């Protein structure tokens, strides 16, 4: 075991997969310049062919990733930040998500899009989106949001080896956090949630960076005698509904903490699933701590007001316990 940061874990995952398989390469804006700090050492090791800077042409290079994948490569496409996917939306939806299906299984699309999410740092509405819920509505895409260095490495490696398109939503609020990562080859299968803290009174499901808030809230509530089970969703599609339902069956209460906008969110989807399949376990209404249905303002205080935090979770859990 070693202790590494989330961002180091991401770099290790890419490095190891590029060493292992020559068909793996990374492309995106300024990847060879290591603009985000997550490609440290890659260009020195693999050169500019496999660590390929692209022009600012998201539709072009995302679609080129799809074409390269269709003829046998395994591209990692770096989106720089998640909202830049909007520029390439037709390629993601019409080509990447649909080609395997539409062509009756003839096309394989082993492509990984890395979509770091940068919010809560005063970049205003256009740069701050967490668009996984938008993409969740599209069949044919796997969506992950690893929340620990261990998963950042193991799930990204699993994504790169998967024969299907995977979009990895990396929460940049987690990039600096450290955690233990095993020394040997680490693969974390996609599609499974992780119980990060066991509890008996209320289930808190967290999405992406909300893990930090959920664990902090659980610690605070423990001091008040409330036992919180924290479930890190980590894979959005496929979603591990079994782990969530099992937890709710045990606790009888559910809160979902999701940094994205509330309407049509992952939190909404989990709410619907539990209302439909876990209704008789519930002792209280389902609670959601999300971002309200408005845009991210530039003003730091206003932005902070909107985003989930541990206090909001604590206060909602208290209400559930009444």
């Amino acid at each position, binding site marked *: 075991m070693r202790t590494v940061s989330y961002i180091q874990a991401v770099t290790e995952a890419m490095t190891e997969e590029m060493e292992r398989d020559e068909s793996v390469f990374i492309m995106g804006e300024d990847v060879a310049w290591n603009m985000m700090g997550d490609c440290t050492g890659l260009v020195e090791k693999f050169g500019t062919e496999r660590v390929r800077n692209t022009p600012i042409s998201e539709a072009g290079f995302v679609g080129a990733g799809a074409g390269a994948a269709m003829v046998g490569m395994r591209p990692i496409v770096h989106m720089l930040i998640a909202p830049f996917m909007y520029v390439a939306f037709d*390629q993601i939806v019409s080509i990447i998500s649909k080609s395997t299906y539409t062509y009756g299984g003839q096309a394989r699309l082993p492509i990984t899009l890395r979509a770091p999410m940068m919010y809560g740092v005063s970049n205003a509405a256009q740069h701050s989106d967490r668009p996984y819920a938008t993409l969740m509505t599209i069949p044919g895409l796997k969506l992950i949001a690893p929340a620990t260095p261990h998963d950042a490495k193991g799930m990204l490696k699993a994504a790169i080896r998967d024969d299907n398109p995977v979009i990895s939503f990396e929460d940049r609020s987690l990039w600096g956090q450290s955690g233990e990562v095993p020394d040997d080859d680490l693969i974390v299968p996609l599609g499974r949630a992780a119980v990060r803290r066991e509890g008996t009174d209320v289930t808190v499901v967290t999405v992406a960076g909300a893990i930090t808030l959920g664990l902090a809230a659980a610690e605070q509530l423990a001091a008040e005698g409330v036992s919180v089970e924290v479930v890190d969703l980590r894979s959005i599609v496929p979603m591990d509904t079994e782990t969530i339902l099992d937890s709710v069956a045990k606790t009888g209460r559910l809160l979902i903490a999701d940094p994205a906008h509330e309407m049509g969110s992952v939190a909404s989807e989990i709410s619907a699933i539990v209302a439909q399949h876990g209704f008789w376990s519930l002792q209280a209404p389902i609670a959601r701590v999300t971002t309200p249905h408005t845009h991210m303002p530039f003003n730091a205080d206003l932005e902070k007001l909107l985003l989930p935090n541990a206090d909001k979770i604590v206060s909602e859990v208290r209400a559930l316990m009444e």
Partner: protein
Amino acid sequence: MITVDDDLLREMYRRMSRIRKFEDTTKELLLAGELYGAFHTSTGQEASIVGSCMALRIDDSMVGTHRSHGHPIGKGAQLDRLLAELMGKETGVNQGKGGSMHLSDFSIGSLGETSIVGSGLPVATGAALAYKMRGDDNVSLCFFGDGASNQGTFHESLNLAAIWKLPVVYVCENNGYGELTSAKDAISVEDISIRAVGYDMPGVTVDGQDVLAVFEAVSEAVDRARRGDGPSLVETKTYRFENHAVGRLPEHYRSAEEVEYWRTERDPLALFRQVLIERGFDEQQIDDLDAAVSEEIVAAIEFARQSPAPPPEAAFTHLFSPSAG
């Protein structure tokens, strides 16, 4: 001049005839209610398709458009599985999941067709990127229409291919209309090939009704790509004989005289027949080629009609590829 021997001439004619008869048949079956869906036929564009496809090797890849019934045929696909696909049958190339606007046959290098105008350009560019990175000597060919030349993906793709010197040939089939709007009203230039200048690659416009002219221009571009000298843009001036979508829309945007002119004076099959005669073929030899194609069509219809429909559970298969890493 590239030399084209009799066998090649015969095969060119055969493929053009296969496309024409396939399309005549699909139109008939559509109007009779046996086929369904939005239906954009390749009729009139056979020379552009075949001249381009025959410049490729079987292991080279190609991406089509929403108007691409003819393109897999040009590349050498079997007719029966294409027709079965148009009937939504389980034996179709896409097992009934793609239909008219998404015919694909990966076994002959047809990497699919896309019904969002311009969306195939990055895909073809990416296939070329893969070939170059692996050191393969394959070429990627991208068909698109005049309408697609106004999409951002056209410009982004040509720029990527130029800066990375990719083995890709962009074939713009300029049939004069993007949906119902004339290219004259929608495109800033008379010849789309001039847009190649902006991307520092060769651009050439050829008569898209002349299969040999298309074959020569595209062969030159393919050779250049295979040599490692980078991408090219070839514009074929062509015409679609049918409406934008068969049997669906008004056709008030173009005159009956214009359509009649192209059908009588600029029919690529009639023009090529003349060339064949000049090259020493006799009428009977050409008629025999047509007759053999007609037999193939009859067999394809029979195959498609007899094929089973996909079972209900097929709606859920192929959402993902089976193997995971």
